[in-house]
Each structure stands twice: as structure tokens, then as C-alpha cells.
């Protein structure tokens, strides 16, 4: 074991790169899958919360919606309002008492997904509310049902608006999966802790861990920024004419003027 800082870092990299990488892989897997499932949960909850109800609807539909919304509010409040680390222990050991033994991977997906879902539910609701009422009216006026309006007009725009928040959640999840080490999930933090513990050396292994977390989060924040750009589409458009004098009114003031394609 070398005595200097850099030497030790190289030593740990050379001898433990495999377990560190495997830990990082687990972290990424849990974060990515759970964020995806969490988003789906969030969309479902957000959509249910924004279904319009009026007095003319049949009582059965109103009753079902009323009960569903009540349960969803409880879900959101409970999972937003308690630490994920505590939830992990509570759910994992709670289900163990009930005789259900989850694999560590399934447990991780479950806990992180329902957490993300609770946050995303509010984000999606906000995203839907952020879309101008005129978009909904325009869709209704051509005969779309509420479902069609949501699917083709409101949700695509809401998704674009909440993409930065989805990115936030993904990055938070990459970092926060480390709390799953309390139920024995061997992700990056657990791997680092084991290495540090076996050598009684802390600063160097955690330097590596810091760097690895940072690399993962920066990579995903760039990736999401790129996705936002892609969803916005090109800043300019092609005129569907061969008439070169067709550039008339309305072209001087569009937002992408002067920028490259």
C-alpha cells in the first residue's frame, strides 16, 4: 500500500476497479429504471388528478374518482413526507415479516420508483396546469375527447415543460440510491464503504467515489439537455415553395432569427 495520496488512489483503482464499477452499474440501473417507472406512475397520478368532473357526470364516475383521488393524495403525502432510507427499511423488513422476501434488486426498484412517482405526480400535475387553457379549448373545438386532448395536445407539451424536472429526479436518484445500502444493496456507496472499511483508509476511496458520482450525474444532465433540444425541433423551417420572393410578413420576428439551424 503506497503512502502518498495519488499512489493510494491508483492502488485502489488498480485493485478494486471491478467492484467499484459494478457498484456504479447497480446505481445507474436502479436510478434509470426507477426514474422511468416513477415517471409512468407520476403521469398516471397526475392525469387522474386533472380529469375534469362536472355535476352532469354520472354519480358512479364521480364516486370512483373521488375515492381514487383521496388514495392518491395519501400516497403522495406519505412518500414525499418520509425519508427514503426509512421507507427502505420499513418496506423491506415489513414485507419480510409478512413472509414476502423480495430480491434486493426488486426491492430497490419498488422503493425508488414509488418515491419518484410521488414527486413526479405533483410535477406532472403542475406541467398539465401550465398548458394554456386555449390549447384544450382548441382541441375540444375540433371534437377531441378529454382523453384525445390530453394524449395529443396537452401531455406532449407538458412533458417538454417538465423535462428539466425529470432530469432533476434522475440525478437525485443516482445520488440517493446510496441509502439503499441500509438494506444491503451493493451499489457504489456500499462498494466504497467496504473497500474503505477493509483498509481503514477513507479519504482516497471516497475521492474515487465522489468522482464517479459526479461523472454519472454530469453525463445525464448533458444527455437530458440534448433531449430537450431535440424535442424543441429545429429553430427554423423550410418554406414549402420554390418562389424565392415568398419570404414575406411574419418571418422577421420568429424567435430563431439569426441563429444557426
Amino acid at each position, binding site marked *: 500500500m503506497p503512502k502518498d495520496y495519488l499512489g493510494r488512489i491508483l492502488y485502489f483503482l488498480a485493485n478494486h476497479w471491478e467492484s467499484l464499477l459494478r457498484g456504479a452499474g447497480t446505481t445507474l440501473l436502479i436510478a434509470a429504471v426507477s426514474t422511468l417507472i416513477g415517471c409512468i406512475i407520476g403521469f398516471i397520478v397526475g392525469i387522474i388528478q386533472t380529469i375534469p368532473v362536472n355535476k352532469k357526470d354520472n354519480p358512479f364516475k364521480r364516486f370512483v374518482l373521488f375515492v381514487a383521488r383521496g388514495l392518491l393524495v395519501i400516497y403522495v403525502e406519505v412518500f414525499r413526507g418520509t425519508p427514503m432510507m426509512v421507507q427502505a427499511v420499513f418496506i423491506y423488513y415489513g414485507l419480510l415479516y409478512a413472509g414476502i422476501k423480495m430480491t434486493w434488486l426488486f426491492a430497490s426498484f419498488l422503493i425508488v420508483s414509488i418515491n419518484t412517482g410521488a414527486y413526479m405526480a405533483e410535477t406532472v400535475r403542475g406541467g398539465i396546469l401550465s398548458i394554456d387553457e386555449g390549447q384544450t379549448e382548441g382541441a375540444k373545438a375540433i371534437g377531441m375527447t378529454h382523453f384525445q386532448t390530453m394524449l395529443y395536445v396537452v401531455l406532449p407539451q407538458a412533458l417538454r415543460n417538465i423535462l428539466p424536472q425529470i432530469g432533476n429526479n434522475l440525478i437525485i436518484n443516482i445520488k440517493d440510491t446510496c441509502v439503499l445500502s441500509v438494506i444491503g444493496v451493493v451499489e457504489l456507496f456500499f462498494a466504497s464503504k467496504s473497500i474503505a472499511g477493509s483498509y481503514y483508509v477513507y479519504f482516497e476511496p471516497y475521492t474515487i467515489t465522489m468522482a464517479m458520482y459526479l461523472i454519472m450525474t454530469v453525463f445525464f444532465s448533458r444527455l437530458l439537455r440534448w433531449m430537450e433540444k431535440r424535442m424543441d425541433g429545429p429553430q427554423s*423551417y423550410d418554406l414549402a415553395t420554390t418562389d424565392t420572393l415568398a419570404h414575406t410578413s411574419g418571418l422577421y420576428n420568429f424567435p430563431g432569427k439569426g441563429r444557426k439551424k
Partner: protein
Amino acid sequence: MSDTILEIRHLSKSFGANAVLRDIDFSVNKGDVICVIGASGSGKSTLLRCINMLETPSGGEILFHGKDITKERVNVPAYRAKVGMVFQSFNLFANMTALQNCMIGMTKVQKKDRKTAEKTARYYLDKVGMSPYIHAKPRQLSGGQKQRVAIARALAMEPEVLLFDEPTSALDPQMVGEVLSVMRNLAQEGLTMIIVTHEMAFARDVSSRVVFMHNGVICEEGPPQELFMNPKKQETKEFLARFLNG
């Protein structure tokens, strides 16, 4: 030819204690171009929004080919597909190009195949002079261009009646001209339209009937020459005088 499309009977609408529309009665025949004029807050827009069921009427009936669409268990979306609407604020779908805006109703509501839908959409976009801009997103278009696309979107559904809710109120004078000329052409082609507008000259030239609204009731209605040149009610005279004197 008096083929009645819409018949409105004793229509009323109130928001809380505020009665915006009271006992509105009128009918729309095929080929009618009806302009609704009146001061802001007189209930013109609310009337139009009630006809399209964007506001639920508080009372009365709206008969579409004799069938009351304010009743329960009426398929309102299917009714709206036959009654087009053009809004003051355009309400084009921001996530779609001009062409997609015109196609989505045909492909998703009318279930036409993409090819037919695209052909129809291109036809109507050409009609409103927007064919060079079919690939532009709404944010890349000027107000007048947006409104013309919105008209094409409504036309592409081939509605029996087209409702215009102050289509030029958000536009500058030059753009007002381009939108009004499109509407003039539609009127000449015999499209049935109800137009809420503050453009008096347009109302006088285009409409077959003018409805003047005042405080939530139809105060006076008649052919444009009569209503503009020889108004009978005091309120109509005062309203028109204010317009003429600027």
C-alpha cells in the same frame, strides 16, 4: 331555402349570480352569415361559447338539426366536430406544425387516413394562403398567419357551421385585413358562419343578418342595411353612434 341547422331557444347562462345571457332566441339556416355585434361584456362571446358547449348553458335549448345538445348523454365531442370554432387567441397546438394542426382532427376525430387528411389539409391551407408555411410551428408565425391556419384547421373538419369569436381582435390593422379577406371569401362560397366581431364595415358587407346584443339579451336583429342605416332601438343607435364617431 330555409334548411335550419341551429335553433336556440330561451338560452340563458349565468356565472354565479351574474346573468350573462338571458332568454336568447335565434336560429341559423344553411348559408347564413350572422354577425353578432355589441359592447364588450354584452355576452357575445359567451353566446358563441355556449353554442359550442365550451360553456354549459344554465337554461334553454340548443337544437342542432332538431336535437337538443344541452341534454345529458349527448355526445358533445361528436357535435363539436360538426361545428367549427375560431378563437380570438388562435389556440393553435403549439407542439405541431401548421400542417399537423390541420390534420390532427381529421386523423384522430374523423378517423380519416393520413393521405386523405394531408390532401384536405393542404387544400384548405392553400385556400387561406398559408401553403408556403405548412412546416412552420405556431411560434414561428405572425398573428395573422396563425389565425389563417386556425381557420384552415376549422375548415378542414368540413363543419356545417363555423363560429368566429372575435377573430381579428388580437391583430394589428394589416393582419386584420388578411384575415377578413379570407372570411369574405368563405362567406361568398356560402359557408354558414356566426361571427362575433367589432369590425362594423365587415359586418355590414358580409352578413346576411346582424344581431345586436346588449346586457345579455338580443336587443335588435335584422338585415345589415336596416340595422346599420335605420336602427330602431335607442341602444343600437347609441352603440353605432359611438362606433361611427370613433
